């Protein structure tokens, strides 16, 4: 009986609490005379990055009592499901943090505001055209628009165990003189000894890493014909990086096959233990290395290898404005403040990524030798728009075709010919549906 009474009491409390704590609705309209309210959906998740975001929003709110920004923290894993629903319901946040591959579909559907004529000249000139290219998409009506302001990018570097690197006596690569892929393979062989390997390739999510590095040899994986249709191509340029990684794994035996099924950060315990010397990874992984490395463990950041070029494919993190925002001009003012040079440097430092702003890249925090920032920032000059960025149907090709095929290839279950054939044949069937 006491339980029944307790439950009844709890029900009353719960219902009162639940009914009493409604929010203000998704709309950010404001009554005349009241400050304009803007919702800012941020996907920052690292401690320093969240702190930097909150600090900048606080600074803005103090300096602009008439435009108040509400910081809403979202999640990378679910942001696009969240946005699809909120766009359809007309309640999306005013300012949206996302990455450039996601913008294309939303732009075509008319959910994002074209910022072409809204971005202030100073911000526009501070960000190089290569970065603006990552946010320029068709508007679904035959025109082109700019659907976000790019502000953070990632390049691939090699994180190295300094003790094993020094012991191998190989040439230490620099941003001006990186290893060629041949040198990289030779270095990995020299560092392979007993149970220790030269390199580890965590390939649980192999597609972006492979496609971005394939540009080293001019591999684009997609081509557009005279009829305007995009198809998959896996020619000699595309096969080069695939084959070289495969050779490290099974011919040279200088790469640890145990790491193949791992996610990006999973090999770190084995890396710290000295099971392998080199870990090719995105620049952001330096944060985990710096935080988790045991006392006395020395590590360095090396530039990514060079093929016929040192180019790598890049996507950007972006800030966009929802088409339905009631305050697009105020939202743009906030973005211009949030992404100015000094602020971009703070955000990049917090996320351990590279700023697109040229003035931010010159910030001392971005060029210090500590934690490999100098090498990471220098690698930004090799970033070009990832060729897959503007391919309709890329996401489906990636998840249904490329991921399983590349995983099987790297696991030595299929040959490169079989992999190429499946990437093209099955891939073209997917792309075909998006181009009807």
């Amino acid at each position: 009986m006491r339980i029944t009474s307790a439950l009844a009491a709890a029900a009353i409390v719960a219902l009162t609490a639940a009914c009493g704590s409604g929010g203000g609705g998704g709309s950010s309209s404001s009554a005349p005379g009241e400050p304009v309210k803007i919702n800012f959906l941020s996907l920052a998740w690292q401690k320093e990055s969240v702190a930097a975001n909150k600090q900048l929003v606080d600074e803005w709110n103090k300096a602009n009592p008439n435009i108040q920004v509400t910081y809403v923290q979202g999640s990378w894993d679910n942001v696009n499901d969240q946005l699809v629903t909120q766009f359809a319901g007309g309640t999306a946040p005013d300012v949206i943090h996302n990455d450039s591959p996601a913008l294309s579909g939303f732009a075509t559907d008319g959910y994002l505001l074209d910022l072409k004529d809204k971005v202030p000249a100073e911000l526009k000139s501070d960000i190089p055209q290569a970065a603006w290219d990552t946010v320029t998409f068709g508007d679904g009506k035959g025109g082109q628009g700019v659907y976000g302001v790019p502000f953070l990018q990632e390049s691939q570097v090699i994180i190295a165990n300094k003790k094993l690197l020094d012991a191998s006596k190989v040439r230490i690569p620099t941003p001006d003189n990186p290893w060629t892929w041949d040198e990289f393979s030779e270095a990995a062989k020299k560092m392979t000894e007993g149970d220790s390997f030269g390199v580890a390739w965590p390939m649980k999510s192999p597609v972006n890493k492979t496609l971005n590095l394939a540009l080293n040899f001019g591999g684009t994986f997609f081509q557009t014909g005279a009829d305007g249709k995009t198809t998959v191509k896996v020619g000699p340029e595309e096969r080069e990086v695939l084959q070289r990684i495969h050779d490290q794994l099974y011919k040279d035996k200088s790469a640890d096959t145990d790491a193949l099924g791992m996610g990006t950060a999973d090999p770190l315990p084995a890396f710290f233990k000295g099971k392998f010397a080199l870990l090719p990874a995105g620049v952001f992984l330096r944060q985990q290395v710096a935080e988790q490395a045991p006392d006395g463990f020395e590590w360095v950041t090396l530039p990514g290898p060079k093929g016929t070029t040192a180019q790598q494919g890049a996507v950007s993190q972006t800030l966009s404005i929802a088409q339905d925002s009631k305050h697009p001009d105020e939202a743009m003012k906030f973005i211009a403040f949030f992404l100015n040079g000094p602020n971009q440097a703070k955000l990049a430092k917090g996320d351990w990524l590279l700023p697109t702003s040229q003035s931010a890249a010159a910030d001392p925090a971005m060029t210090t030798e500590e934690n490999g920032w100098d090498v990471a920032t220098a690698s930004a000059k090799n970033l070009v728009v990832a060729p897959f960025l503007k391919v309709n149907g890329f996401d489906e090709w990636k998840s249904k075709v490329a991921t399983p095929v590349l995983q099987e290839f790297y696991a030595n279950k299929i040959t490169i010919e079989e992999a190429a054939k499946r990437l093209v044949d099955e891939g073209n069937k997917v792309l075909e549906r998006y181009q009807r």
Partner: protein
Amino acid sequence: MRRLSQYVALVAYIVFLAFPLVWLLSTALKTPQEMALADPTWIPREPTLANFADAFGEQDLVGAAVRSLGVALASSLITVLISLPAAYAIARHRGLVNRIAIGWVLVSQVFPFILIIIPLFMILRDLELVNTLPGLVVVHVTFTLPFALWMLQGYVRAVPPELEEAAAVDGATRLRSIVKVVAPLLAPGVVATLLFAFISSWNEFMFALVILQNPDVMTLPLTLVRFTGPEGVARLGPLAAASLMATIPSLIFFAIIQRRLKSGLMAGAVKG
């Protein structure tokens, strides 16, 4: 010997059940360096509360837990209040309409979540329930109700109609026989349904993500996900600390209510 093997099996089962919780506790007490050891240990070498400090310092975990508790209690109670009489009607009055109703309940479970989320969101928006906890309660009740109804009608069916007939012979009205005879026998079923509805609501993430946008109304799952980044990378220490805290209210709820979750009330009820 047989008894010993039973105990061994029982201990193994308990270890299996407790493993995630113990691992969570162990991780929550470790430093980032210790989490990255190639040979992980169960007992942290240098236990630290820094992960708890980070988790509670960075996010409003207590506020989120209170909101989640409110939503879960409200959702589970409303679900039971609605599904109990409906289950009785479906179980006792067999006919074409009831068969169709049961069929519809089952079919409603088939629709993929993503198919209904946008229309549902539109309805909530028109009712001005977006970004409110009552809106979330409505959605949770809607989604828990079919299965709760299905569960409860099974329990009602297990209560022999002869007991109600006996009560009627003794002069009880239908309402009285339901309240005094059937309802007490349904207690385990009601408790099981309450638990199911509570845990479904407590853990629910996707609807909350879409419906709640104001930081002041966010529930616990939305707060926990803030410790994760792209491609499965996470801040494991604060996430483990926060997740550990998130399991405590549901454990307490379960501990309070599980005493009612007993069977055998009706053993021998219609003998002879």
